[in-house]
């Protein structure tokens, strides 16, 4: 399949090559402990977060520097989101949600750099995140409310005959949550990067007219920046929504 794509029309379109996981040093099989480009870009994510939140807040001054201001805004943004969506008692879980946000957002943004590797475009990564959220939220729900948590699926405001049907639908949608949660993020990141790569593939055969794909990529970049932020926001706020469902299943 790859050969056939290479053979056709002289376009060098390999939109998925950028997502290949490869060892960082040398060629070889990818074991679970191998240091790969995944490692590198996740490490860069941690580095960026540390730079912003730890180094930025180093001064601890009352009137913030720009870096500290960014750190405070991020903190306030996520904290407000947790408090508004999950409620006051959701604030206990703020560090976890902040961790998720502080992983997804920098990973998305770093993925925008040319030649970078987008860790959040991999379903394996987002699935782990989503399943972790799903599992912990479900555990919190059962720990806090016991079997009352199942009331989440039993819509008591609906007419009685409809309730079993609704319950089946609710249970199904509950278990679809981690799937949609993970695929939304990975798919969004993958789609944008693939589009950029496809456009870039056109440039080689167009000569001077390759200005157009370049300009198109620039425009897509604008969209992608937006998508990177919005998807991080959506991933985090959905986490908060699930957390609220676990904390207050009656709503």
């Amino acid at each position, binding site marked *: *399949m*790859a050969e056939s794509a290479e053979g056709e029309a002289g376009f060098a379109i390999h939109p*998925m*090559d950028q*997502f*290949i*996981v*490869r060892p960082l040093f040398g*060629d070889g*099989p*990818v*074991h*679970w*402990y*191998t240091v*790969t480009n*995944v*490692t590198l870009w*996740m*490490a860069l*994510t*941690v580095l960026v*977060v*540390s730079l912003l*939140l*730890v180094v930025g*807040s180093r001064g*601890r*001054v*009352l009137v*913030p520097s720009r870096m*500290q201001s960014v*750190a*405070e805004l991020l*903190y*306030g943004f996520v904290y407000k989101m947790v408090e508004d969506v999950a409620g006051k008692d959701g604030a206990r879980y*703020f*560090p*976890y949600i*902040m*961790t998720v946000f*502080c*992983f997804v957002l920098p990973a998305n943004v770093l993925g925008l750099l040319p030649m970078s590797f987008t*860790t959040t*475009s*991999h*379903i*394996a*990564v987002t699935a*782990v*995140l989503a399943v*972790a959220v799903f599992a912990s939220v479900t555990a919190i729900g059962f720990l806090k409310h016991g079997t009352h948590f199942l009331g989440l699926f039993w819509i008591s405001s609906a007419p009685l005959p409809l309730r079993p049907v609704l319950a089946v639908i609710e249970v199904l949608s509950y278990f679809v949550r981690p799937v949609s949660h993970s695929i939304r993020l*990975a798919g969004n990141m*993958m789609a944008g990067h693939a589009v950029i790569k496809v456009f870039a593939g056109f440039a080689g055969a167009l000569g001077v007219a390759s200005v157009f794909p370049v300009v198109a990529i620039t425009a897509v970049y604008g969209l992608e920046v937006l998508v990177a932020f919005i998807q991080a926001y959506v991933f985090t706020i959905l986490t908060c929504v699930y957390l609220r469902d676990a904390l207050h299943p009656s709503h």
Partner: protein
Amino acid sequence: MATEAQGAESAAGMPQLDFATFPNQVFWLVVTLVALYLILSRVALPRIAAVLAERRGSITNDIAAAEELGLRAREAETAYQKALADARAEAGRIVVKARAEIQKDLDAAVARADTEIAAKAVESQERIAAIRASAAASVGEVAREVAREIVQAFGTGADGRSVAAAVTQRMKG
């Protein structure tokens, strides 16, 4: 491409579905998340929270202090006014008391003076009475003396007895 033979097909197609790389990704993701969580929960978040709390605390503290100070200022103002009023009242009381004392002193002094005057009046009354009494005795003597002188001045000799009798006679009448 740069992948092994067994994974060539799927890796070249969709790297996301190359299950051979999943353990690697999951492992590094878990490492990353733990590292991020530790960094955030141990260092970054408490620090930022402290800064935000300090700022908010500073502002609320200042405003609360301002309110409290304002309250104290109002209290001080009322206390000031009250102290002034108290001082005036105290002054008025002192004046009244002083006046009363003075009045008492004056009354006492007047009474003392009255008794003194009364005593003097009594004394002078007595003295006058004494004068009168002594005069009644000495009038006869003096009158005899003077009468003899007068009689002698007229050249007629007179004996003392007749003169004395005449004086006694006169004094009775």
